């Protein structure tokens, strides 16, 4: 694959949120390392899926990529343009080319705007369409593309069902004619029967408009369904990245294996046959991540050497990128899983007595 095919390239991206305490003067007492050194690249016209559990930093990564949350460090290059160093005005005009779809279609639409005004806002901002009629034409075509009727224009978000609202959100992103769309949990707030409608719509739009997607979701099945490449995140970093079919047939990282084995499949035969790799305990706090490999506290394959003191880098193993010291030995069956004792993990703002719990300001990460 040549370099010109890469639309988005992220290098060593870090987003650290300061934890502030204090009544009068804010004192920074630590950092939540929501994203801590992520490299990834998305080829034009393809879909990159990002999975992970809540608090792994996948949403923050998506926002940092779009510069909606300022990255602490690292580079994001979009079609050759370095976004992190772009002047605010230039960045704003770049936004036309990269859009976002949100999880909750209700809260991501201004309740006091009707659909026409929602869709016009972006067009006006970027000066697309010479006059009202031309804009109406563009909007009309977009409505057709996302499967909304024309009478939707004069209506307000609260008058639609969840699935239709998500279509409005998609229309808002698509109407600008973007190249990249970051979809943050696009279907997880929707009913099961509606999820498929939206997933299919995203597929259709990609085919007809040549869109590039970054799909962020906690649902491995959804991500696998729509992604060409899947990245698995754990505590702010990628632990494995592979083509989606390969990830399913040959998961290499212990966390991917555990995640895969935990997803329920609506098929009794598969369910009865499956061997569950049950992970012990909970996700450690991103404010105080474990040393070495971040997964070693819960890893059934953790070894006494290296795992606890050396942070594994992503390395290529037969087409996948894996951050595990022992991936080959685990794949060959040389290493066997063992029992892991549970380490108690406290929610953010740990303390022995009840008090004010100050959660880090990481919007939308508690999915």
């Amino acid at each position: 694959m040549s370099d010109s095919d890469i639309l988005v390239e992220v290098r060593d991206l870090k987003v650290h949120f300061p934890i502030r305490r204090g009544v009068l003067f804010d004192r920074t007492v630590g950092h939540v390392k929501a994203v801590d050194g992520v490299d990834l690249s998305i080829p034009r016209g393809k879909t990159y899926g990002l999975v992970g559990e809540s608090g792994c930093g996948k949403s923050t990564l998506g926002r940092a990529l779009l510069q909606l949350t300022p990255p602490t460090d690292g580079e994001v290059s979009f079609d050759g343009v370095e976004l992190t160093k772009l002047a605010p005005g230039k960045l704003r005009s770049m936004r036309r080319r990269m859009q976002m779809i949100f999880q909750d279609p209700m809260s991501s639409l201004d309740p006091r705007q009707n659909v026409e005004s929602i869709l016009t806002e972006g067009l006006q901002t970027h000066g697309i369409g010479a006059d009202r009629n031309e804009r109406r034409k563009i909007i009309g075509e977009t409505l057709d593309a996302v499967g909304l009727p024309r009478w939707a224009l004069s209506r307000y978000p609260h008058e639609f069902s969840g699935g239709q609202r998500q279509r409005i959100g998609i229309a808002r992103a698509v109407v600008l004619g973007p190249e990249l769309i970051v979809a943050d949990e696009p279907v997880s707030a929707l009913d099961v029967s509606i999820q498929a409608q939206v997933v299919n719509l995203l597929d259709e739009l990609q085919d007809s408009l040549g869109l590039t997607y970054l799909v962020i979701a906690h649902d491995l099945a959804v991500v696998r369904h729509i992604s060409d490449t899947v990245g698995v995140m754990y505590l702010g970093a990628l632990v494995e990245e592979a083509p989606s079919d390969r990830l399913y047939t040959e998961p290499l990282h212990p966390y991917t294996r555990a995640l895969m084995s935990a997803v329920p499949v609506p098929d009794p035969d598969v369910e009865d046959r499956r061997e569950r790799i049950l992970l012990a305990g909970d996700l450690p706090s991103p404010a105080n991540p474990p040393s070495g490999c971040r997964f070693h506290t819960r890893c059934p394959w953790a070894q006494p050497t290296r795992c606890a003191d050396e942070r594994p880098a992503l390395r290529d193993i037969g087409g996948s990128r894996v951050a595990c010291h022992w991936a080959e030995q685990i794949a060959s069956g040389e290493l066997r899983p063992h029992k892991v004792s549970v380490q108690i993990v406290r929610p953010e703002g740990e303390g022995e007595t009840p008090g004010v719990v100050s959660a880090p300001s990481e919007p939308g990460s508690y999915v």
Partner: protein
Amino acid sequence: MALLEVDDLSVTFARRGQRTVNAVDGVSFSVDAGEVVGLVGESGCGKSVTSLAIMGLLPKQPGLRVGGKAVFDGTDLLQLDDRSRRDIRGRDIAMIFQDPLSSLNPVIPIGLQVTEVLARHRGMKGEAAAKEAAALLDRVGIPDPKRRLKEYPHQLSGGMRQRALIAMAVACQPRLLIADEPTTALDVTIQAQILELLKELVRDSGTALVMITHDLGVVAGMCDTINVLYAGRVVETARRRPLFREPRHPYTVGLLGSVPRLDAGRGERLIPIPGSVRDVLPWPDGCAFAPRCARRIDECVGEPPELVLAHDGRSYRCVNPAPVPGSVPPAAKLGPDAPAAPADPATAPADRATAPAAPADSATAPADPATAPTQVPAPREEESA
């Protein structure tokens, strides 16, 4: 006899100036002792209201009407006064909710909340109660239980809170446990832990479990019998394998077709159900699912579809059910991709044995392949994207 027999349960909310809402509209199902029964449906199908009505936990408000019967071990729960219902609740029937944080009292230590249940229903006090509470927490897999007893709910993670809640629910060895979306708020790996724990508890103690969820994957792995709800009514009841292998009600078919599967390939098209849950027909006017149904025929509208009883305790409420896959080739593509998945050779023969019997039992099923295609109407033209 069944442990819990819910018969024609209905719950209506009437509010002045607003349309009366039939949250539950004639739900019937039964739970045998030690059985795991699933209630599956999307938001607004009445699955949670059903469980709250059985438990007598619906908020008392004017305009609320609960009808029908819910017979637990010979007594109709809906006829009981508050006092005796409270006695049954917690001792014989316990419930686990979706959000463990809001179901636990935030200002009381976990230990006290567990011992409270023990004191109320088992008359345990002091040291004995504390010891039993620690044993319970240990049993549900909470590490270092003695210390945890002194802690407050906010000090525990979501998974641990749900475990604590389960510990409280099983404290009195109830004969029936109702779990309302117990894992929806949790991550997949934690969900797997909790589901495993629930399975273990059911296996070890013989408690019957009613599992309320929207996730077909969860019921596939757990439930013996599954009831699919739509618009406040059970539309299909079946044992777990037949349901996933040969779903008969078009809604079940649609649900299975619209869930992306982890073991399906990239880009495999999903078959969504058109429209939204808002597009319902009131049951008295016909099948509530008719407006969204790909198999709708004229008989669907006019009067509510009768419950069709098939073999093996199976039933569905449909006048034009999906044919058994394999028997009618042209219509088979309407079915989910589930049967196309690699079948376990060990279980396949057993299922094949039941398959031919199905069309014979259901009179409306197109048994003859030649006539079948004519009965399949074209899907509605409106909103099918």
